[in-house]
């Protein structure tokens, strides 16, 4: 049976992990390759490396990083952050990334999604959607790291990217991100049930029960978290054992 996936996200700036990490067994927790290898050995199902560097050297730095990760890590990994063109994606895939996440660039130019799917196959194109529930109760798409609002609903955009050929959707609830109060079950479930591609839920995971909820009530195919893993608030193996005990299909 296809397993529900647990994904760790690492934020990268100038080739280094930026969010504070708290690992005793790691020589250099700022080294994304070493941290990624640690998670792979701990049983994480996938890794996402999100680059937040804003320099002209970015593409080369990120490509170099992808190559170093691919050399060491024996599980799938996604690279994202500022990816805006076919050429960006080609370079990252050639350097060993399994999948590429596109966000704002896809929204500003939806044809990019279909062009990428046609060029490289849907399987490696993850469309990341940052969404926020406004006072009117509706979930809207936000761009540029959540700083720019749009009038497009999350559900409409999710359905469009699926139609355009996205292989997966990485859905982050800005209302829940960082709260550790649980994932956004309603919008995750609504998106997951309205598209025929896998949905990765992100934002809000704080307890093991939250992960169980996002798979059962949220209908998510995968769940992503960052700090709770980095700060060892939840250990990957313990989380996966817990979910397996709850009857979910989990790779241990």
């Amino acid at each position, binding site marked *: *049976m296809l397993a529900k996936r647990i994904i760790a996200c690492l934020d990268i700036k100038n080739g280094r992990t930026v969010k504070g990490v708290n690992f005793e067994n790691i020589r250099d927790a700022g080294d994304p390759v070493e941290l990624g290898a640690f998670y792979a050995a701990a049983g994480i199902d996938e890794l996402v490396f999100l680059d937040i560097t804003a320099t002209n050297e970015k593409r080369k730095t990120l490509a170099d990083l992808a190559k170093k990760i691919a050399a060491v890590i024996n599980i799938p990994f996604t690279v994202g952050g500022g990816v805006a063109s076919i050429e960006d994606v080609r370079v990252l895939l050639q*350097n060993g990334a399994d999948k590429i996440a596109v966000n704002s660039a896809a929204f500003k130019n939806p044809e990019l999604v279909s062009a990428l799917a046609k060029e490289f*196959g849907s399987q490696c194109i993850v469309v990341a959607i940052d969404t926020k529930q406004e006072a009117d109760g509706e979930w809207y798409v936000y761009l540029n790291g959540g700083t720019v609002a749009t009038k497009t609903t999350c559900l409409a955009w999710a359905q469009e990217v699926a139609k355009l050929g996205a292989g997966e959707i990485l859905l982050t609830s800005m209302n829940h991100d960082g709260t550790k109060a649980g994932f956004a079950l309603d919008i995750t479930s609504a998106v997951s049930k309205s598209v025929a591609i896998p949905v990765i839920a992100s934002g809000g995971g704080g307890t093991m029960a939250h992960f169980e909820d996002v798979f059962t009530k949220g209908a998510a195919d995968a769940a992503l978290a960052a700090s709770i893993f980095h700060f060892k608030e939840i250990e990957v193996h313990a989380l996966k054992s817990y979910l397996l005990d709850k009857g979910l299909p989990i790779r241990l």
Partner: protein
Amino acid sequence: MNVAIVKYNAGNILSVTYALERLGVSAVVTDNVELLQKADRIIFPGVGEASTAMTYLKERNLDTVIKSLEQPVLGICLGMQLLCSYSEENNTTCLSVFDESVVSFLPNGTDKIPQVGWNTISEYGSPLFNGLAPDAYCYFVHGYYAALGPDTIATTHYILPYSAALQKNNFYGVQFHPEKSAAVGEKILQNFLDIK
């Protein structure tokens, strides 16, 4: 050991090269007929689309070369599918090493297509799976599958049971990605290198 990876217009070749390096094997990526024929092991990897890949192989006569190889050959994902007789993906006639055909998953209302993620493999029928626990998890990414048939040496269930792996004579094929399947994948690649 002299391992050659078939170079063609399909992605994911670097990952296979690195996975072999982690096993201490330095593979050559080539479409040179002589290098392919004299290698001890051949890996035929691939992420991509069947008809484009077959066209590319035919233009370079690699279709005939691959079929006539006599050392152990391992097709991975699209590589395995291209070793089958036919693929529904753009109605493509394939290499016909394996008797099985490749068809598209049909929506069942609940399972997503393509299948993306870790699924279990079962009913091992080859030394390729020596030393694995039953129902080991491997990483799959595919929208088309090879049906069960006489060459099936492992099965997976997604929407329906299908061939996770095939073998005929010196040809092996796996639908999943051993190069991305953690320790289980490394064991399978090692077993392939160890085939007598």
